[in-house]
């Protein structure tokens, strides 16, 4: 399809396959598959009976053949720049050019028509359609963009050591988009690795296609060797100057999709990297997503010592700030409602905000959630938000009342609590909003007046009368179930937060006893899944029961006020400790001790007796481990990074305090409020030690 047409059909043309954007090429090591599929094509033609026998399977093959050809032809004809190695091979495979291009034309004309008349529904995901096109569109903080830009600028023209950049950060924070946008603006070429199809498994998935496949598939190479070849060769040759445009010689290689073998054993990957550094070439950018659960591939693929050895620079992205996110969501929603194929009323501000909040700084997830929520008018969701933010008025609801009368009645019945859940059931990937509401229910622990009639049933024998509690307003098991979280995870949150809600040290003792009971129950991994239900019950009920200041329905008058809730530090701490263990084991190989011994005994002593260490890695590792206030240092560092986002955070913070009928919290607020609460930190830090054993 021609350039113009794609421009018409999709607003963002940086997308991979259909894109005609010359700056971005995916080097799928296709030729091999191409040739095999070509052969298998012939065999299918020869034996039509085989095709009949398993229609589904062979049709998949046919389609695949078609696609292969389309893809490579479109690459040849449209993209003036294709790496020469690939060209050679793909030329060797003769293709029925005319057929493919015909089909292609038909397809694209049809699509332009749809776009013009604006009748047909459009076919792209919003997250693709509204992908950033320029620096201004990026939701990433400007300083981060600048950092990456400077790195690229600084390294693109230098021919010496090939620099390596590692981008980390939570998923959906714009890592890939930043690189894409920047390379485009700096007029560099972006080569991207994408995992190839492996041939040898062809026979695996279609058992009926007989030996022919095996014979035809030829020699298959491992992904690792293909990856190595890609890295070492991708930048050897310039693209050909076919269309008379100026050839872009500056190249950047991006790897996001690591060959799967590397997750099991990263040493070959490290070897490839070392080789790459020796051989030299274009700047290399790796993108690795963090995970909030602490399991990160960064630790595996790029251990600290390798980073320092190869001088890999590391830029880590923060979650997208709330204000940015809302801004972008508003833009997308208004654009889509006025120009999109599907008409809907622009969702209310509160709806957008709650979507943004529940997505936990993940812009792509937020846009996906928005697309889903917007399909129907969001009036039902807006109704949810009214009871959260009182500032919101009925401006929108009057206009849209007519439209969704049918839904209205189902909602007028359901209570506000249920509405919250419903909004959440559409929300993004993060459940924290749920969670904070559920946590609030448990921690604030509201009680009812005891009913007069069946008082005996709830009464305890006299000697236990101090354990009497008024009936609970809620059923804790139900609350947890509605939070859609696993018992372990919920327990960790409770454990992080319960202390601040108590007035009495004795109460904390009882509560922590129940906590340790839950921990004890889930020690054994084999029975953990069964016993998790007990954990939920005991942890929630224990926390609620132990709080004597809330034992009666009427003494809630001694209000606790609004308390910030925190995310459990366990996951982060656990991640750090594992990271340290790994680097310690690597750096102090000579000591031959287990990581625990290394961390707790050997290295601290080494630092005390003041021996001279020669390895800089060892020294830095020692410093890291023996700085016992490392908790705070870590947090301050985090705060510094956040400082650049400060204006956003502050407005967010203020707003949250104002509307703080319920303890809502986001990541940013958490880090800020944590640093403000240095007094309670001592307690928290001790908690961490306990949590360490929790649900491991």
């Amino acid at each position: 399809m021609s350039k113009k047409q794609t421009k018409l059909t999709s607003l963002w043309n940086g997308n991979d396959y259909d894109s005609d954007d010359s700056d971005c090429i995916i080097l799928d090591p296709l030729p091999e598959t191409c040739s095999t599929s070509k052969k298998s094509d012939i065999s299918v033609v020869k034996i039509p009976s085989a095709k009949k026998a398993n229609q589904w399977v062979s049709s998949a093959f046919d389609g695949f053949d078609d696609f292969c050809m389309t893809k490579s032809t479109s690459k040849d004809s449209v993209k003036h720049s294709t790496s020469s190695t690939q060209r050679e091979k793909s030329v060797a495979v003769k293709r029925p050019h005319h057929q493919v291009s015909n089909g292609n034309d038909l397809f694209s004309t049809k699509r332009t028509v749809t776009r013009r008349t604006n009748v047909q529904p459009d076919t792209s995901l919003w997250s693709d359609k509204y992908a950033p096109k320029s620096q201004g569109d990026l939701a990433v903080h400007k300083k981060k963009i600048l950092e990456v830009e400077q790195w690229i600028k600084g390294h693109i023209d230098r021919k010496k050591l090939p620099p390596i950049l590692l981008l980390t950060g939570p998923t959906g924070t714009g890592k890939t988009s930043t690189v894409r946008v920047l390379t485009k603006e700096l007029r560099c070429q972006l080569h991207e690795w994408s995992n190839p199809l492996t041939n040898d498994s062809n026979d695996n998935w279609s058992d009926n296609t007989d030996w022919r496949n095996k014979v035809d598939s030829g020699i298959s190479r491992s992904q690792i060797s293909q990856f190595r070849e890609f890295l070492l060769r991708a930048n050897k040759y310039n693209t050909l100057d076919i269309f008379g445009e100026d050839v872009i010689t500056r190249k950047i290689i991006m790897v996001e999709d690591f060959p799967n073998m590397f997750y099991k054993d990263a040493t070959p990957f490290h070897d490839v990297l070392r080789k790459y550094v020796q051989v030299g070439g274009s700047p290399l950018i790796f993108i690795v997503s963090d995970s909030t659960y602490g399991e990160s591939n960064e630790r595996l693929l790029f251990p600290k010592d390798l980073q320092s050895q190869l001088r890999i620079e590391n830029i880590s992205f923060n979650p997208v700030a709330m204000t940015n996110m809302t801004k972008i969501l508003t833009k997308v929603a208004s654009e889509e409602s006025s120009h999109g194929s599907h008409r809907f009323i622009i969702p209310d501000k509160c709806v957008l905000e709650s979507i943004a909040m529940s997505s936990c700084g993940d812009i792509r997830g937020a846009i996906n959630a928005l697309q889903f929520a917007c399909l129907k008018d969001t009036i039902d969701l807006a109704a949810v938000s009214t009871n959260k933010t009182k500032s919101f008025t009925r401006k929108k609801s009057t206009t849209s009342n007519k439209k969704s009368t049918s839904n209205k009645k189902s909602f007028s019945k359901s209570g506000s609590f249920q509405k919250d859940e419903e909004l959440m059931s559409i929300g993004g990937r993060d459940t924290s909003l749920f969670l904070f509401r559920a946590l609030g229910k448990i921690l604030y622990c509201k009680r009812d007046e005891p009913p007069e009639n069946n008082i005996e049933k709830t009464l305890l024998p006299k000697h236990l009368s101090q354990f009497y509690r008024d009936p609970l307003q809620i059923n804790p098991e139900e609350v947890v179930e509605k939070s859609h979280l696993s018992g372990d995870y919920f327990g960790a949150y409770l454990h992080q937060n319960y202390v601040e809600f108590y007035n009495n040290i004795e109460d904390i003792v009882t509560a922590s006893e129940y906590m340790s009971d839950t921990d004890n129950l889930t020690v054994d991994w084999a029975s953990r899944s069964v016993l998790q239900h007990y954990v939920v019950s005991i942890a929630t009920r224990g926390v609620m029961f132990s709080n004597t200041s809330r034992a009666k329905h009427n003494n809630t008058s001694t209000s606790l006020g609004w308390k910030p809730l925190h995310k459990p530090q366990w996951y982060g701490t656990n991640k750090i400790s594992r990271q340290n263990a790994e680097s310690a084991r690597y750096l102090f190989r000579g000591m031959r001790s287990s990581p625990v011994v290394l961390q707790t005994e050997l290295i601290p002593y080494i630092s005390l007796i003041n021996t001279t260490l020669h390895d800089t890695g060892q020294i830095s590792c020692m410093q890291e481990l023996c700085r016992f206030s490392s908790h705070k240092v870590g947090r301050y560092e985090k705060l510094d990074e956040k400082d650049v986002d400060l204006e956003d955070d502050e407005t967010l913070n203020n707003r949250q305090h104002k509307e703080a009928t319920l303890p809502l919290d986001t990541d940013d607020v958490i880090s800020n409020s944590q640093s403000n609460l240095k007094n309670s930190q001592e307690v928290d830090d001790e908690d961490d030690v306990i949590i360490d054993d929790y649900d491991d």
Partner: protein
Amino acid sequence: MSEEKMETGDSTIQPSKPESSSSPGEAPWVEKYRPSKLCDIVGNEQTITRLEVFAREGNVPNVIIAGPPGTGKTTSILCLARAMLGPSYREAVLELNASNDRGIDVVRNKIKMFAQQKVTLPPGRHKIIILDEADSMTDGAQQALRRTMEIYSKTTRFALACNASDKIIEPIQSRCAVLRYSKLSDAQVTKRLLEVCESETVSYTDDGLEAIIFTAQGDMRQALNNLQSTFQGFEHVNSENVFKVCDEPHPLLVKDMLQHCVVGNIDEAYKIMAHLWKLGYSPEDIIGIIFRVCKNHDMPEYLKLEFIKEIGYTHMRIAEGIHSLLQMSGMLARLCKKSAEPNVLAS
């Protein structure tokens, strides 16, 4: 779970319409009464209404549907696919579940090839890849999936169903709209059960249905299975028969036992336990039902908490392999001790 494995074949493609003419025992009722339209699905209206719009409009984003078993996750995906794709369902849907081979190479090859395959569809419609029980996919397979999801988003959309959304790696969650289904309420299950009872002319008593709802715990599939097996086994649905079929200790017995424990009457409590033991129930079954009954039993908060704790510890021992009546009676003794006066214990 059982019937999900049957879905891979052609059986799912034909919308299974309820036909009351068929003889009993022909098809599982879960299949027979599986909704074929989105509007027939019970519960989670918020999400379902939106899915209905997608079925009309097309261009559905990638979705993850998470929720406990028996809430209609797979059914809603199938209904959506059927409504959206209509006659081209056969070519344009690839369904893989845990029973299929779903290692990395399958994700790499089968899914990728399907995504590359050309299917003529009306504009705004996409091929759909259904990954059922996606939380059982390995991390590696999920990693391999993320890029595929992005590259082929122009032609192919993914629908994942799973029980726990946190088992799905975050990059994939970020590429999807995550929809969360919650457990069906007892009223919702009852409504559907009554409908089925009517069209199958099942003779039932109210306590029979109650028993089915108790055993099903908000799982529609299990409710229907239990209803069918009770009906086919005994031809009458009352609570006796239901618990016989489900092979669970009768919760009323357990409730009595707990009440004896609350008042500290160990003798009576032990009698019931010994009775249950003699009936041949396994300790896991007994302890499981004790926990479930205890959670909903009307008793002082302190005792309930302590009871749950003791039951939990006993369950832990049972899980470690100590299957003896001694453990169970030990638990009863500890439960009774909770409310007993200190001087009683001393004497």
